[in-house]
């Protein structure tokens, strides 16, 4: 996206802590070192962790605004109140659709803008942590977008149960934490959808002997026991962490509380039980399905409207 209007594509990205990064394009595929995007007050734009960002002329001003997603699943519009080649980002505004604040499934929203229905106005498409993709049609105008209630384009992904006996799926399917891009992939004049995921592929549940089943059962019982043993430590940890917390307290006081709380988790008794629990998990793991993570890019080609309407 050409955020600085110099005719060269730039890259903007969110991050886990939440800040937004701008890699200025220098042409020939070269980029300048990243700088954090800031608002008109000179503060880093940070609207929640696991941020995502997309630049689009959402308000029809001829300048690129930002659409930002976060771990809560919200969609925020950061209006660009600057000049065409000088962005100046104002106060963020949460977007609603069909009279309700947008909330992506399982949080981790990734909003993008595209004229999906080809009516000349930008629509909103939001991917979510559950792997779903929702289309919000702009039923307002180019300069005053208004979003209709969402329509599901991609359903939430199913998450596998590592303990059941069902055979693993023959074919991989799109996973969770969808991140999307809309582009006319095959040049047929219709926008298509790319979806990146966090997938999990897994094998069959191992065949367990009677002896295995006994070990598994015992391990589960020991797991319950170790959880019980750990609970008082966690109770004490949170008690110390929240004891005397005030919204206006100095940073030092907060650090002091965190230090006192951390002391509980550094105790030998706690660490011994925790180490034991790790071993129990390893045992249980042996009897679960083998699995591995993936991050694939899926292409959903758009059917021509005539075919889709049938």
């Amino acid at each position, binding site marked *: *996206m050409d955020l600085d209007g110099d005719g060269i*594509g730039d*890259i903007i*990205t*969110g*991050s*886990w802590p939440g*800040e937004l990064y701008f*890699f200025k*394009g220098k*042409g*020939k*595929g070269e*980029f300048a*070192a*990243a700088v954090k995007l800031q608002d008109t007050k000179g503060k880093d734009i940070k609207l929640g962790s696991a941020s*995502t960002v997309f630049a689009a002329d959402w308000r029809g001003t001829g300048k690129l605004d930002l659409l930002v997603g976060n771990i809560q699943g919200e969609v925020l519009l950061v209006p660009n109140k600057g000049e065409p080649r000088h962005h100046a980002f104002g106060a963020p505004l949460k977007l609603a659709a069909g009279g309700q604040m947008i909330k992506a499934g399982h949080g981790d929203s*990734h909003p993008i803008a595209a004229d*999906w*229905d080809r*009516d000349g106005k930008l629509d909103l498409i939001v991917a979510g942590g559950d792997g779903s993709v929702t289309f919000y*049609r702009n*039923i307002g105008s180019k300069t005053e977008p208004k979003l*209709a*209630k969402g*329509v*599901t*384009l*991609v359903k939430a992904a199913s998450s596998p149960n590592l303990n059941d006996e069902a055979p693993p799926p023959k074919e*991989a*399917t*799109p996973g969770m*934490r969808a*991140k999307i*891009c809309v*582009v006319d992939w*095959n*040049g*047929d004049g219709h926008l298509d*959808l*790319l*979806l*990146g*995921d*966090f*997938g999990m592929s897994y094998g069959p549940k191992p065949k367990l002997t009677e002896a295995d089943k006994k070990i598994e059962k015992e391990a589960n019982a020991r797991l319950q026991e170790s959880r019980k043993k750990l609970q008082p430590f966690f109770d004490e940890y949170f008690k110390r962490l929240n004891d005397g917390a005030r919204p206006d307290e100095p940073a030092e006081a907060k650090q002091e509380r965190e230090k006192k709380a951390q002391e509980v988790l550094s105790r030998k008794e706690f660490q011994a039980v925790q180490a034991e629990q790790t071993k129990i998990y390893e045992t249980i793991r042996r009897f679960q399905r083998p699995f591995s*993570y*993936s*991050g*694939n*890019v*899926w*292409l*959903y*080609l*758009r*059917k021509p*409207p005539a075919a*889709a*309407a049938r």
Partner: protein
Amino acid sequence: MWKCMLALVVAGNDPAATGLSASDLSAPVRLLANGQPINVDVGHAAPFYADLKGDGKGVLLVGQFGQGKLRLYPNIGSKNDPRFDKFDWLKVGGAECSVPAG
């Protein structure tokens, strides 16, 4: 046909009426690079496609969780039939760059 679609759009927001729904999309297929599905480190693929090089063919950018890095797959196919082989990491001044991923 177009008149018909237009009428439906004007008629209201009923997604079934406008045909704008999941049925709009074909079944998903995984994009390949060098004959294998693109599979980024520690998952969490985040794709973007743009003509970054200005050659009219486009570059597939795929962000990943692993070290918060970004892959650039140049299109070695054609404009209307993109194909991918090798990727480069996004670099600044010759050094791989990243954003905090976790």
